[in-house]
């Protein structure tokens, strides 16, 4: 037999696929959906992991909090000077921040205070300071809010300003000066940025106190050593390093990816049920066809080649279709429904975009757990029938 590709065999395989259009449609639909679900899960988790890593990398290297009776208390601002004297410390900033519960919507806002003349501990905050001229704040206090905050406030008719309720029960009116870009970072969606002076008044924090102190270390290799020095100097404090935060974020991520893992297992389980069903036997019509082909002179390997082409065309087409749909679903439509499982650190949904990551490894992985498995599940039962005596099959 000629070693060149047998076009007639391929044509026959395509014809066979088209002949069984309802069965083919069913298999392609299920297969495409499973590939779509699997690749979507991988793509979304990869994108979110990437986004989380970027977020964690932007966090302060060391955070110093005062602890009393196991609880977080405001720290003295003058500790900043003491910390700055430690060797290895390049900068230290006292932060004033807190959570403000907005009862109307049942959500928490993260309120962050900034000082125009201080270096910000975060690039995103620095860009907000640069973009919205905080120096102009004279008599009228103002704030810049995340997209999610803006939407919540709008729905409660606070379009121009917002009245914060202070601990003593009186109101503090703060104008809304602007909104961050919705695609800045995961955490900015529920954030409100205002001057230190305003936030101190809203949360009733004395000028000598701060919520915590963030510390910048010149050499990243020395973070743990500097953290130990601060702990020695301030024994009543809790020192949180980027590494600690990374672990904490990872725990949240792992918890959420558990839900995805469950989806993943369900998808795989469904896929293998189909495969099991397929490999457990051929229909009488399929058996008869193989018997006829053998009876008119097809060899076992001719039958298997035809079945290979048939199953490969179906599974590869479904795989390509599923993967293409995934790209569109995750990166163009931003994975509606599935991403809801992940997003939202606080009660506000974040509106960040899933960054495009062309993950060849995932594409290969999904290919290898779907296409060859399906091809094998088609070929094995066909081989079992093809090796029987033709007379036995067609009789």
């Amino acid at each position, binding site marked *: 037999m000629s070693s060149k590709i047998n076009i007639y065999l391929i044509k*026959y395989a395509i014809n066979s696929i088209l002949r069984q259009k309802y069965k083919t449609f069913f298999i392609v639909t299920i297969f495409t959906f499973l590939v779509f679900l699997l690749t979507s899960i991988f793509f979304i988790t990869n994108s979110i992991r990437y986004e989380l890593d970027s977020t964690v990398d932007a966090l302060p290297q060391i955070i110093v909090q005062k602890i009393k009776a196991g609880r977080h208390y405001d720290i003295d601002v003058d500790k900043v000077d003491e910390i700055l004297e430690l060797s290895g410390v390049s900068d230290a900033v006292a932060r004033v921040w807190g959570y403000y519960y907005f009862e109307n919507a049942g959500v928490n806002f993260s309120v962050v205070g900034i000082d125009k003349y201080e270096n910000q501990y975060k690039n995103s905050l620095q860009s907000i300071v640069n973009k919205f001229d905080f120096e102009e704040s004279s008599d009228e206090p103002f704030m810049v809010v995340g997209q999610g905050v803006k939407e919540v406030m709008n729905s409660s008719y606070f379009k121009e300003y917002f009245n914060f309720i202070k601990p003593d029960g009186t109101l503090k009116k703060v104008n809304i000066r602007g909104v961050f870009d919705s695609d800045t970072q995961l955490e900015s969606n529920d954030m409100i940025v205002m001057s230190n002076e305003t936030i101190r008044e809203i949360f009733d924090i004395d000028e000598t106190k701060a919520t915590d102190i963030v510390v910048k270390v010149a050499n990243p290799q020395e973070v743990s050593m500097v953290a130990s020095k601060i702990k020695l100097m301030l024994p009543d404090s809790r020192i949180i390093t980027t590494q600690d935060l990374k672990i904490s974020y990872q725990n949240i991520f792992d918890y959420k990816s558990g839900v995805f893992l469950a989806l993943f297992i369900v998808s795989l389980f469904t896929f293998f049920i189909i495969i099991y069903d397929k490999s457990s036997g051929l229909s009488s019509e399929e058996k008869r066809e193989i*018997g006829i082909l053998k009876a008119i002179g097809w*060899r076992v390997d001719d039958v298997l080649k035809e079945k290979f082409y048939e199953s490969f065309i179906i599974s590869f087409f479904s795989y390509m279709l599923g993967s293409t749909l995934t790209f569109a679903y995750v990166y163009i439509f931003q994975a509606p429904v599935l991403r809801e499982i992940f997003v939202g650190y606080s009660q506000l949904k974040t509106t960040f975009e899933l960054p495009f990551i062309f993950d060849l490894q995932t594409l290969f992985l999904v290919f290898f757990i779907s296409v060859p498995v399906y091809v094998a599940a088609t070929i094995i039962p066909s081989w079992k029938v093809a090796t029987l005596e033709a007379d036995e099959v067609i009789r």
Partner: protein
Amino acid sequence: MMIELKNLTKIYELNTNDKVIALKDISLSINEGEIVVLKGSSGSGKSTILSLIAALSKPTSGEVIVDAKQISKLPDSFASVYRRDNIGFVFQKYNLLTNLSVEDNILLPLIPLNPSQLEVDAKIDEVMKKFEIIHKKDTLVRNLSGGEQQRVAIARANVNDPKIIIADEPTANLDEKLSLNFIEILRELKSLNKTIIIATHDPLFFGLDFIDREIQIDNGKIA
């Protein structure tokens, strides 16, 4: 092409306790170009003889020798090649793929040979013309009448130009007129010096001038 059956016995084992003896120690020779009718009632063993000659199954004991080659012990892949090169089988129920067109059904035996387009077109056109089915070339087989389906089956059996034609109850599903048409086709094939073996209990085949031999099979034995 000389066919020799030597002491053929075929036992079908339905399960461990249930066996059917289809053939009992049959010996028979068929000469090249000869046309032989195997006659007998249903279940007499006629179809089993055809199946063994076509290497569709293996005998329990005995030998099938075709052109001095023992084909009863051929491994599966060689048996397929033997069928492809030497045998044209017209089955009782035609065994066509009914959701394929006439042309695609006739093409089937040629596919493993991976022939050129020209070769395929020439062969298929030739047999379709010869067996008067070319006008239905693109029709799905399931939309054909019984007689037309039989013509497709005969065309498929002849597309490889085999030396041996085997027909199992070829007129079982045809009316008398179509059966006589089939007999005329056999006459033509005989003129091409093909060895033809027909298993039938249709009396139309008995006593025909171009039939060389009629062999009665009863209960798995030559009567």
